[in-house]
């Protein structure tokens, strides 16, 4: 039995997990189209490497990683690429982002793929490469590319591997059901992770005591492997990385540090399954377990969902009743965000679609004044003073906010959950964080501008000083010349041509400089041609945007049409200039 530590604060919202685990993990009918956002992870968005109309097979790479912290995207099923464009994605702002749409053919034909079974004899570097190529990013929270996380570098050897099976958010049972049904493969995945990390001393699966079936399912597979299943009392938010590290090790992750700095890697249990599939079966990450739950859907169940499946498809196949509830949440009721529409797709981090009824989650009551009762401070897992943060957030007192460690807030929502005055505290903190970040950026910018200005001033002054010195020197020379005219005439014979020749030199040099500035006609022509090419490109983009705006009847039509006109005029100007030059 491993010792566990107790975190401060925390809340016990109704768990509501039983509804979705009455049936095993199901399979949805194949959606007609899948929409794969190019950015489903932290880091650079992937770059499409397919064309519209191209047929793709399941598992085929459709977008390549852009740089080190990025992942490739794979076709989740076979079909045809039908669009590469901006689509609404699962983001709390309801923004559009580049996506690849695949029209499925229903055959679900795999691309040729092959895994390896003797991963013990493969170098960690090669295994990491396979993880990276399989497009795996963390499936529990932020979606950090796994291959990057698993490669902390030689100066940070990993001593502890923590597998996060906490799933502390109410309603969500994706990890729970995956463990129940796939325990063997999950443990296999953990063993692969152990091989990648050069066999850390401690490997712990952290799980809350409200999942006895999952704990039981893991038991036979971890026996004799050195992997320990650590069970601890259920409390929200035990599944936060910082909280879980403390619960399992008694260590706090210093503010601003990563687990790797403490010799730890913390990875979601769903990710371990994806890693097993990637290495042993050679399959990239094209599907994940997602819970569909809440009283507004008729069927509450977990599904092995293809990445890119539209939420509308999931809702339609689970008897969603639009009248029963007003919001649809991606994620859980504590940290999940409401979807702008049902057209957004499931991505690699989507563990739950929650469609609560009005009875379950009624509309918010209006906020009452904060009476500083301190219930929020009792609930805060980071030992912050939420009531003070709220006070200073309202006052936009950035200094006090930072002194009260605003940036250590993990936005778990425990404070808002307990607030008797219904104050949307987390919303205030998010806004305040945004403002402070913005202010910091602005400060960097203005510092930069000030430095540039000061440097500029310095340079001008320097030039002035030099000029002044030269003038002084000339005056002195002139005075000398006046004072000693005989000497000048005496030496006049030998040096007479010297001043005039130096004057001529100065003029010649000035002419040369002017000529150099006036580029050759060839250069000018090349430059103009480049300008025209760029302007043409801009015109195309601007016209596309205008077309989009017109199609969606957006209020930005005027702006875009002005932009198009402007670009066109500039292009015309450049063309006339070019004609003049070549004529």
């Amino acid at each position, binding site marked *: 039995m491993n010792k566990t530590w107790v975190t401060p604060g925390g809340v016990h919202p109704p768990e509501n997990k039983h509804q979705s685990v009455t049936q095993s993990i199901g399979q949805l009918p194949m959606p007609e189209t899948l929409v794969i956002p190019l950015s489903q992870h932290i880091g650079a968005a992937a770059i499409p490497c397919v064309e519209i109309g191209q047929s793709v097979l399941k598992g085929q790479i459709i977008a390549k990683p852009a740089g080190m912290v990025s992942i490739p995207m794979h076709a989740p099923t076979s079909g045809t690429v039908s669009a590469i464009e901006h689509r609404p994605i699962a983001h709390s702002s309801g923004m559009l982002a580049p996506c690849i749409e695949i029209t499925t053919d229903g055959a679900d034909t795999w691309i040729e793929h092959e895994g390896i079974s003797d991963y013990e004899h493969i170098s960690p570097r090669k295994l990491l490469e396979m993880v990276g190529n399989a497009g795996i990013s963390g499936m529990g929270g932020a979606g950090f590319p796994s291959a990057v996380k698993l490669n902390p570098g030689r100066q940070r050897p990993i001593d502890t591997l923590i597998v996060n099976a906490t799933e502390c958010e109410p309603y969500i049972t994706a990890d729970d059901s995956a463990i129940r049904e796939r325990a063997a493969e999950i443990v296999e995945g953990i063993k692969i992770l152990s091989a990648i990390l050069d066999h850390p001393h401690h490997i712990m699966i952290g799980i809350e005591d409200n999942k006895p079936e999952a704990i039981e399912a893991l038991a036979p597979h971890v026996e004799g492997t050195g992997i320990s299943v650590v069970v601890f009392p259920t409390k929200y938010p035990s599944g936060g990385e910082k909280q879980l590290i403390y619960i399992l090790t008694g260590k706090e992750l210093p503010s601003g540090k990563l687990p790797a700095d403490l010799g730890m890697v913390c990875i979601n249990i769903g990710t371990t399954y994806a890693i097993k599939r990637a290495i042993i079966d050679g399959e990239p990450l094209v599907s994940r377990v997602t819970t569909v739950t809440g009283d507004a859907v008729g069927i509450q169940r977990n599904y092995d969902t293809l990445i890119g499946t539209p939420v509308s498809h999931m809702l339609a196949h689970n008897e969603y009743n639009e009248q029963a509830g007003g919001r649809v949440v991606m994620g859980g009721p504590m940290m999940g965000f409401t979807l702008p529409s049902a057209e957004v797709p499931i991505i690699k981090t989507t563990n739950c679609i929650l469609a609560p009824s009005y009875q379950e989650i009624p509309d918010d009551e209006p906020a009452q004044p904060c009476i500083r009762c301190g219930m929020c401070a009792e609930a805060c897992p980071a030992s912050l003073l939420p009531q*003070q943060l709220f006070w200073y957030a309202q006052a936009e007192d950035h200094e006090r906010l930072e*002194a009260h460690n605003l940036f250590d807030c993990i936005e778990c929502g425990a404070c808002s959950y307990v607030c008797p005055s219904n104050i949307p505290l987390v919303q205030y903190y998010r806004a305040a964080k945004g403002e402070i970040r913005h202010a910091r950026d602005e400060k960097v910018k203005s510092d930069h501008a000030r430095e540039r200005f000061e440097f500029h001033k310095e340079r001008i002054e320097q030039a002035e000083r030099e000029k002044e010195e030269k003038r002084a020197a000339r005056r002195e020379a002139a005075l000398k010349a006046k004072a000693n005219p005989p000497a000048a005439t005496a030496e006049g014979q030998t040096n007479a041509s010297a001043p005039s020749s130096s004057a001529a030199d100065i003029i010649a040099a000035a002419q040369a400089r002017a000529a150099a500035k006036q580029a050759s006609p060839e250069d000018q022509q090349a430059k103009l041609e480049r300008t025209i090419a760029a302007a043409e490109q801009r015109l195309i983009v601007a016209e596309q945007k205008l077309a989009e705006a017109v199609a969606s009847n957006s209020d930005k039509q005027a702006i875009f049409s002005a932009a198009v006109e402007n670009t066109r005029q500039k292009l015309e100007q450049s063309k006339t200039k070019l004609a003049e030059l070549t004529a």
Partner: protein
Amino acid sequence: MAFKQVTSPHAHSAQSTAKVMQLVIWATVPGILALTWQFGWGSIINVVIATVTAVISEAIIVKMRGRSVSFYLRDYSAIVTALLLALSLPPLAPWWIIVVGTVFSIVLAKQLYGGLGYNPFNPAMVGYVVLLISFPIQMTTWVSPLALLPEGVTHPGFIESLQIVFGGMIPVDGVTGATPLDVFKHNSGLLVDQVYDREPLFNQGIFAGAGWEWVNLAFLLGGLILLSNRIFTWHGPLGMLGALALMSVIFYDSGSSTSPGSALMHLFSGASMFGAFFILTDPVSSAVSNRGRLIYGALIGVLVYIIRAWGNYPDAVAFAVLIANFAAPFIDNYTLPRTYGHTDRRRATEKEEG
């Protein structure tokens, strides 16, 4: 399909500010019963007058401020303020005392500062202190506890009480008398043991003065109910009671004739328990962190003792609380909890490095 856009968290606990206030109101019931049992109908009449005055003045001010009257009255905070003031006032005090105090509490101490959540001082205690300074005679005339009434005299009945409160009728001789704290304040030359022996207030009582010990026990019970419902944490009350007990042990002076009284007497007399569980636990005007509330409570305990022992007033909870209200932001500044992932506690005014 377009969905409603709401920020997380979506789940909320069932607790509400109105429920918190209602629970505080219910928790005063044992105290009201004890007061009525020991001192007659006066306290209940106080409560009724204060509540009506508070609701009316709150409604008028909220209306004048252009806010929704029903929304702000529904938080029950005006009733709590009224209740706390009414229970501090002497039973059978004239009606206008209560009205003036309540109007001061609600209008000046609460609404003029911005209403619930914005008042730097405990509204009930502001009202109390205004009355104590302006009308010292009415404010220091307490009814005698049940056990001390002379032969054949009872507490005035309900109708008679109304006549005293509204009609200015003078109560029968012996109905009013000293409090245990008065006894010690005006003690001249008696050892503590002799006081307990000879003073009827003490020889009729069990451990801390007839009547008063029951009232304090009742408020202790109400406070424990609130504590078990997590309306507040133990820090403030324990800080005050601990400091008060410690001070009275240190300065007990082995029960000499100048002793300000025993720890037990101080804990269970006057407004000690009422103050510890109902007054200093007002979150709005107190310190915010747990450590801060412990210090805030202790400060009040020390001040209560100092004023009781060496000041001009026999009891001092109101003054002590108001002085501590002044100190609350200062205490907050130095009592930030240590945040996860930080090695040191910070100061609220600390600036970022660099």
